[in-house]
């Protein structure tokens, strides 16, 4: 929480917050004066039998109330501004951060929790900041002020009061410690509950096909029970606060009255003062109730702040800091487009390298085909070019420069990437296509759609390019989604196009047309086609054969048939015999 405040609240909002706290202070002072005024009312008014004094002090009380209210309004206004703006800043920063992280970072944090942190945890922080400004001054100062006032009225009695407060503080500390741990645990257990529920929804067909409904139910019930128990424990600990403080404070009052008795009878303590003392104690008691509530909210807020800061403090594994725009001339675009030098890739957490010993040079305008078995490292290879991951050893260069020397922006602008999984986002066809070039003309979009074999079905839509795309592209078929994803990569005239098994949902005819269209793209466009179908890669200028992360063949179709047994085996399984010979 402290770090969050010093980074997000202090620099921008400290003058405002200071004013707010000051305003709140004015109100508190008014509240603290009230018992003293009443003591005067009793001592001067009643004992002096002076009606005028009583009315005068009564009016003073009303004035103090109005002044306090006005100052508080200022404070509340500032609190709402500061808290909401802090929340807004946090959300923006978090979202930016999430978009900067690599997929390895994100899976380490847990994809499922990121949105929760972004929305729910930031909300909790917002509430905490607002209440902090509004109440952190009011109630503790009211409590502290009451103690100081009693100490000034009578030292010995004030000490009793102080003792009681220390005792209450100890209770708070105990409860806060217990409940923080329990709330963290509770959140974890709630996550498990939603995990099971989410799994059940996503796997409903498999669950029913395997007749596992009752096991799922049992597992869910267990998770819910565990969550319920933790929630009950946490709530029960929090519930200790109010009764315990009530008990301590009133026992303190009883002690005060007992100790005050000799002084009253001796005449060293006035009646009004005793009333004021008791008033201070009751108002301190009320204040401490609020402090208790505040402690709970701050506890929750701190847990949330930690979860938020964890994301913000994640140092992205990849960084382009310090890199400057590289001047690329047309001649650069005619040289070597992509070069791998003894490149290897190890995913987070170590283990076997996903890729190792990859060496290849690809001329601009050439087509590279990549083929290999499941887990052979094809997608890892593709991910190295736009620098979604960094190599462990060796290097990857694009147009003569190490990918690590580029800014992300420049490097990725050169590349059109089509992932294995189609992903459209809600919006229109246009907004989905314009990722690379926000100002793409209609003509450019239609050209991309033509090449991607998507123009026909888009043209059939009444709204054409502005047809609505639902979340995840749900209103399109798998094949249509895939073709739109391909079209998206082609907008913005990329120099390198990477298709990562991007035609798996297309039927053979469409796939063949797509490949023919891709071949006709400009002579300087370099294509990298990853596929499991020999037919998709056999025409390529070079074919890379991968097996368990290792390069086992590189060459043309003909060369590989002669030199690479694995390639030949794959061909035999897919092609007509006369084509393999």
């Amino acid at each position, binding site marked *: 929480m402290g770090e969050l405040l010093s980074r997000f609240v202090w620099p921008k909002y400290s003058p405002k917050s200071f004013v707010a706290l000051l305003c709140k202070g004015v109100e508190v002072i008014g509240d603290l004066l*009230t018992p003293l005024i009443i003591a005067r*009312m*009793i001592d001067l*008014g*009643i004992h002096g039998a002076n*009606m005028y004094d*009583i009315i005068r002090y*009564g009016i003073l009380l009303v004035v103090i109330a109005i002044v306090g209210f006005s100052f508080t309004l200022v404070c509340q206004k500032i*609190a*709402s501004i500061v808290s*909401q703006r802090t929340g*807004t800043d946090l959300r*923006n920063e978090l979202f930016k951060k999430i978009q900067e992280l690599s*997929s390895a970072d*994100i*899976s380490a944090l847990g*994809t*499922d929790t990121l*949105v929760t942190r972004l929305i729910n945890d930031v909300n909790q922080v*917002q509430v905490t900041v*607002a209440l902090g400004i*509004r109440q952190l001054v009011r109630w503790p100062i009211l409590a502290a002020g009451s103690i100081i006032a009693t100490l000034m009225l009578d030292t010995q009695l004030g000490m009793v009061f102080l003792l009681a407060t220390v005792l209450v503080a100890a209770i708070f500390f105990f409860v806060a410690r217990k409940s923080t741990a329990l709330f963290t645990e509770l959140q974890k257990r709630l996550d498990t509950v*939603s995990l099971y529920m989410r*799994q059940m*929804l996503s*796997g409903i*067909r*498999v669950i*029913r096909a*395997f*007749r596992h*409904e009752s096991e*799922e139910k049992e597992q869910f*019930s267990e998770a819910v029970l565990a969550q*319920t128990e933790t929630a*009950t424990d946490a709530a029960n600990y929090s519930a200790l606060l109010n*009764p315990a403080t009530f008990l301590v404070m009133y*026992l303190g*009052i009883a002690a005060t009255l007992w100790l005050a008795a000799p002084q009253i*009878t001796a005449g060293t303590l006035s*009646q009004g003062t*005793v009333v004021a003392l*008791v008033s201070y104690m009751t108002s301190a008691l009320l204040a401490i109730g609020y402090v208790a509530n505040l402690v709970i909210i701050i506890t929750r807020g701190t847990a949330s702040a930690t979860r938020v800061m964890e994301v913000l403090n994640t140092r992205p594994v990849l960084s382009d800091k310090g890199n400057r725009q590289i001047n690329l001339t047309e001649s650069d675009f005619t040289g070597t487009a992509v070069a791998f030098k003894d490149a290897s890739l190890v995913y987070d957490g170590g*283990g*076997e390298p996903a890729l190792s010993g990859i060496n290849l040079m690809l001329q601009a305008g050439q087509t590279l085909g990549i083929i290999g078995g*499941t887990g052979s490292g094809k997608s890892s290879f593709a991910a190295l070019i736009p620098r*979604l991951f960094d190599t462990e050893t060796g290097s990857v260069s694009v147009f003569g420069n190490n990918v690590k020397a580029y800014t992300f922006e420049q490097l990725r602008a050169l590349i059109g990437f089509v*992932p294995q*999984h189609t*992903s459209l*986002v809600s919006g229109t066809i246009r907004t989905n296509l314009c*990722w690379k070039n926000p100002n793409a003309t209609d003509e450019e979009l239609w050209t991309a759609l033509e090449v991607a074999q998507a123009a026909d079905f888009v043209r059939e839509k009444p709204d054409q390019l502005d047809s609505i795309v639902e*979340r995840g592209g749900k*209103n399109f*078929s798998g094949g249509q989604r895939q073709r739109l994803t391909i079209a998206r990569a082609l907008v913005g005239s990329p120099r390198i196009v990477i298709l990562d*098994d991007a035609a798996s949902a297309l039927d053979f005819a469409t796939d*063949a047309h797509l490949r023919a269209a891709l071949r006709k793209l400009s002579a300087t466009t370099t294509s990298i086609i990853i596929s*499991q179908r020999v*037919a998709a890669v056999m025409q390529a200028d070079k074919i890379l054969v991968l097996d368990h992360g290792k390069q086992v063949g590189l060459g043309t179709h003909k060369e590989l048939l002669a030199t690479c047994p694995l390639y030949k085996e794959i061909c035999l*399984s897919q092609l007509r015999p006369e084509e393999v010979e």
Partner: protein
Amino acid sequence: MADMYSGGSTSAIASSAPERGKGGSADAISISAAEVTRRLAAWISPHRGFLVLASVSSIATVILQLWVPIIVGSAIDQLIRLVQGAEAALLPTLAQLSLVVLLASATQWLASWSTNKLTYLVTRDLRDASHAKVANLPLSYIDTHSQGDLLSRVVNDVDQLGDGLQQGLTQFLTGMVTIIGTLCFMFYMSIPMGLVVALATPLSIIVASAITKYASSSFSKQQGYQGQLGGYAEEMVSNQELITAFAHKDAIIEQFEAINEKLRVVGERAQFASSLSNPSTRLVNNFIYALVAGLGCICVLTGVPSVLTIGQVQSFLSYANQYMKPFNAISAVVTQVQTAYASARRVFDLLDAKEIKPDPVDAEAIQNPQGTIEFDDVAFSYDSKHPLLNHISFRAEPGQKIALVGPTGCGKTTLINLLLRFYSIDSGAIYVDGHNTQKLTRASLREQFGMVLQDTWLFKGTIKENIRYAKPDATDEEIIAAAQKAQAHEFIQQLSQGYDTMVGESGGSLSQGQQQLLCIARVMLANPPILLLDEATSSIDTRTEQLVQKAFDTIMNGRTSLVVAHRLSTIQGADCILVLKDGSILERGTHDELLAKGGFYAKLYESQFEGTNA
């Protein structure tokens, strides 16, 4: 990345179903507040013991706590009258004070304890019931509702409901009792003074309710934008990798910031509005306090309008100080209770959804599985306006391999939905082993099938647990044997923790093909008489696929299989290929027959080699 959980795992099958119910809209749910209360009461009823305990101890707490100022007041009065040396006369009063305070603390804790217990038992029941409900819902409901929405009903709404219940019970009950109790104690001490405070009451209520009303309209706007922002973030976070690859983040961030800014504007308003309630009621409270003090002193001084002691003035001041608290608490809790009611509506709406009809009592079970499938003039549509399948008739003899071919969206995968009775057919009949599937128990019907869907489903757990899913009592040896047959053993062994490697949700770094191999291993373990392969091999490379195919050939021996695949190489050995187009069977026959016929299938087959000859 854990794409398999990106929310659309079953979308391939479900995508053809029109999205009817949009997620998150509770507007359409019309359950009256009285109805919600009645139904909540029914959920509380099994735990009413705790409710009674909570009520009794809350009331006791309030009465004891209200008694405290009176004892303190009389102690002060005693103090004033005390003569030097007789201080011990104070002891009984102080002992009484201590006892009452002790009791009040005990009952207060008891009240919280029983309220907590009650609340969490009710939320647990509701969660269990919602889960059980979802387990019994027809797939048409699940496919047409956003999974996020259903999830949020079971998780967030039940939480909100619990919070509302807990706060509502505590604050409402103690608040009401405190108000009534305070008035009684005050009237008991002095009727005119009591009247003054009582007459000021409406003022406080008006102030409190006006502020609540003002705040709640801002709050609902705020919640709207918050939902919008959350939806946007979720979508963009799940596509983060691709957005990175496209260096598209700036545009995304810009849009996020735009929505966020709107949220800020309404958020500030809502926050300010809600923060008015405490100071405003405090203002009213302070007026009352001044009035009580002034009037109280006059009473002590003149005995008019009522005779009071200084101690009693002190008690009145204590009451006046605490008097506004319940109003504050109740008005604060009103919003929470309203939110809880909205959540309750959404939960009850889910619980009210129509379940699948249970198996009739006379439903049969297949005794000696043979593996015959017969479709007899089956017609089906997801919605009546757009018929999807028409006049589907075919028969698979035991051990036969039937392949389904056709363009995307022609209804191939829908057949699987119908066979397993995930959806009900509109007309015609489907027979398995001569039994009309409608007359079989679902369990018995589904036991006949082993299915591998296009989209893999792995749950968070080890690989071993994921395979064992098919047969909970399988030994490790059986699991390894199944994995070996599914060609998954090799890659599993290469993982650092082998069969104990965690997969699913965020722990999964398996490729799609590997995930699919695990799903195949699962079916291998189940060893069912009929296999349903829904493009099962689409994301496994041909080499692996060949091995899998070999294993499938072994397992398919003597078993019926229905294969939906794009890759024609996998189905050339089929006993019968059904070519589906526009919802009906266009051609049927073996691979050679269909090629000889030179129809749609032949064209499709030729097209896969087009690229190689270009």
